[in-house]
């Protein structure tokens, strides 16, 4: 048994490639739990970061620095009364949140957290992700329509129009990256792992490829992905100041929390696409400048160091807690949390573990950067109006995407073109 586990873990295949249903199930469970946990963490982080941007403290009461607030909220949502409006289409109303959540989670099947840390390596990986994530709009339309109410209907109509428009610009940006994978081998790949490996073999992240073309394509993608996930400044479908809560106005309790879960899972999914396509996926930064075994060792210690810093912050917080009986539980809780983080950090320093974990670590760090950007946008920008949103999508992003695509293709063909011209010349 133990041998079987270690044998599999030391092999360099994904469960999908190995055809192992057992390992695939384990991976799916880990990913599902991980996504749910990240959504909970995101919930806390968003509230805290947004609060600090807005000179507030955010949640402070439940647990030290409100660390348990998301859990308290989740519990509250679970035990709330489940209301289905009398005039709603019950079956559709019931299934809409399920559809949204399913699609958001299914996309993670092909997300490569590392060379072997993906459920499967599909040869049409990126197409699969796009296809499944755009199914999410179906759930939103279902939610808006079945609520049988004006605000949700308008929200879902806005949402569908928005998602359809921005998917095109997004697709054009993705094609740029796929074109770039074909440069050395001559055959491109749609596989998520293949795309990262192409970046490894070309010794560059695609964001820096054909500067500024890669950067422009990344920019188009980065804007389209915010619109795609209905987040500020493109959060019209759920614009709280206009449409109350948009398509999920009539939802409450657990069903509402499913929409919440799906929204954040979708944010994680598109950020994962961006990281995979443009930022070198699981690869560590500066593989060319800072190469060599010493730098490899230094970078592989990063996960443990990060956890040690977090643990240190927690313990510092524990020491700074007011020494009064009312705060005793909080102080002890924060201390235990810090020690736990420190322990995980110690585990991650073990030689065999740290090499395997650092792939996941760098991937998560890059995704976390995008998540921070999402929060930052929300704290800074006003909201677009519907017609302006469409204008940005069709008149700015689409032409830019097309131009970048054509330019990328021409640039990639430059060697052939020049050799052809040289051949024709006398």
């Amino acid at each position, binding site marked *: 048994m133990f041998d079987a586990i270690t044998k599999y873990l030391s092999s360099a295949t994904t469960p999908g490639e190995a055809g192992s249903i057992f390992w695939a199930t384990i991976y799916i469970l880990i990913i599902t739990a991980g996504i749910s946990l990240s959504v909970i963490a995101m919930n806390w982080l968003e509230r805290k970061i947004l609060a600090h941007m*807005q*000179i507030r403290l955010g949640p402070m009461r439940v647990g030290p620095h409100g660390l348990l607030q998301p859990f308290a909220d989740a519990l509250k949502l679970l035990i709330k009364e489940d209301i289905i409006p009398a005039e709603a289409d019950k079956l559709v109303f019931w299934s809409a949140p399920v559809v949204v959540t399913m699609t958001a989670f299914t996309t993670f099947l092909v997300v490569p957290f590392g060379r072997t840390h993906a459920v499967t390596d599909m040869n049409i990986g990126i197409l699969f992700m796009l296809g499944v994530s755009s199914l999410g709009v179906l759930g939103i339309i279902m939610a808006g329509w079945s609520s049988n109410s004006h605000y949700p209907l308008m929200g879902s109509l806005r949402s569908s129009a928005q998602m359809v428009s921005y998917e095109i610009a997004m697709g054009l940006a993705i094609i740029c990256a796929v074109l770039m994978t074909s440069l050395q081998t001559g055959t491109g790949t749609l596989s998520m792992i293949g795309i990262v490996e192409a970046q490894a073999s070309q010794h560059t992240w695609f964001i820096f490829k054909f500067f500024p073309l890669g950067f422009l394509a990344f920019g188009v993608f980065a804007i389209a992905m915010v619109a795609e996930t209905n987040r*500020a*400044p493109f959060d019209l479908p759920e614009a709280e100041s206009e449409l109350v809560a948009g398509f999920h106005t009539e939802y409450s309790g657990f069903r509402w929390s499913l929409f919440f879960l799906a929204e954040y899972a979708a944010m994680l999914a598109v950020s994962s696409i961006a990281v995979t396509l443009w930022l070198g996926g699981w690869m560590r930064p500066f593989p060319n400048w800072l190469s060599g075994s010493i730098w490899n060792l230094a970078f592989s210690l990063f996960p443990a160091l990060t956890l040690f810093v977090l643990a240190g912050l927690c313990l510092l917080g524990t020491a700074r807690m007011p020494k009064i009986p009312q705060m005793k539980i909080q102080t002890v809780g924060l201390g235990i949390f810090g020690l736990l983080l420190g322990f995980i950090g110690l585990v991650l320093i073990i030689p065999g573990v740290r090499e395997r974990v650092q792939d996941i670590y760098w991937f998560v760090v890059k995704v976390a950067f995008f998540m921070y950007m999402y929060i930052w946008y929300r704290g*800074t920008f*006003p*909201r*677009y*109006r519907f017609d*302006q949103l469409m204008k940005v999508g069709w008149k700015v992003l689409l032409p830019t995407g097309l131009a970048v695509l054509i330019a990328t293709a021409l640039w990639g063909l430059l060697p052939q073109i020049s050799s052809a011209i040289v051949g024709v010349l006398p």
Partner: protein
Amino acid sequence: MGENQPGYREWTMSDSTRTDYLDLDTKDETFLDATELVLNMGPQHPSTHGVLRVILKLDGEKVLGTECVIGYLHRGVEKIGENRTYAMFNPYVDRMDYVASVSNGLGYCEAVEKLLNVEAPPRAQYIRVILTELCRIASHQVWLGTHALDIGALTPLFYCFRDREEILKIFEKYCGARLTTHAFRIGGCIYEAYDGFEQDCQKFCDAFLPKLDEYEELLTTNRIWVRRTKGVGILNPEDCIALGVTGPVLRAAGVKWDLRRAQPYEAYKDFDFEIPTGLNGDTYDRYLVRIEEMRQSVRIIRQAVEGLPQGPIMAKVPKVIKPPVGEIYHSIEAPKGELGYFIVSDGSTQPYRVRVRPPSFVNLQALDKMVRGLLVADVVAVIGTLDIVLGEVDR
């Protein structure tokens, strides 16, 4: 009103949900001949600034017509005035525009003083000006925060409320109350400026100007903000005057009309300040005008604090206020526009009739004209830019 009165109709429960205020029978031209959608915005809606109910007739997202339903916050303030003595009614006016309660009190006190033919002593006038201008800044801060929130910018709200806190602290130190201050009395002020009042005001002015730049940094040149506000809800000067719109909304249309300059009351003639006006009369201009008004208010406060005269703060007013028979209309420039009080005295201790001309109520009339042909998202932007307070609209 009795049952045999013409036009009388028993109020029924269905009145609260009826939508026939709008002319729904005439068919407007819609895109692709779609059915019109009647949407009830409010009274429970996050961005109608209280309990305003707007019934929207929509073609998709386009607004074909609106109807405002008001009265959800009606407390009968004017009627209460008929059953209270002049002094007793004073705190009630604070509850109308509760965001700018000091201005309300000032208008009422001045109207009664005019009726009594007394004038507040210079020191009282200066203190009044300082507090009223502070109140104008506070009111504009609430407007800016909520207006930005309506358009989707969350952060300015918190910055505005942080800085408004300093003003409320000055109010609290001066008269003990933060929101409904009841700061002035008929004939002057009852409280002497506390020790350090001048320094507090100066300190606020010094700290506030950089913070105002901070708000502007977030919004003024923000592309999304400019797109959302430029050319939205245009109101030209003729329409403004025809509808009786006053205040920053009128000035943004390019009409240089400010009662502080046009009919100087209190000590305003002593101060040097500009009246900012706009060019296009759109939401962006109204935003700029109000931002500039805050700067001018700081200027006035500085001058008033520097020139604060010594002397009594209360004019000679009898204990029991019994104005001679007559009527008076007096208006001041409140943060939202012309705030007028029409008081009829029958020679007794209680007014025969008090009528308030609230700026929010009159400005709200312009909503329909401004939003026709715009989108739903613009409706909340326009409601925000009109700067209404429902306590004042409904009274």
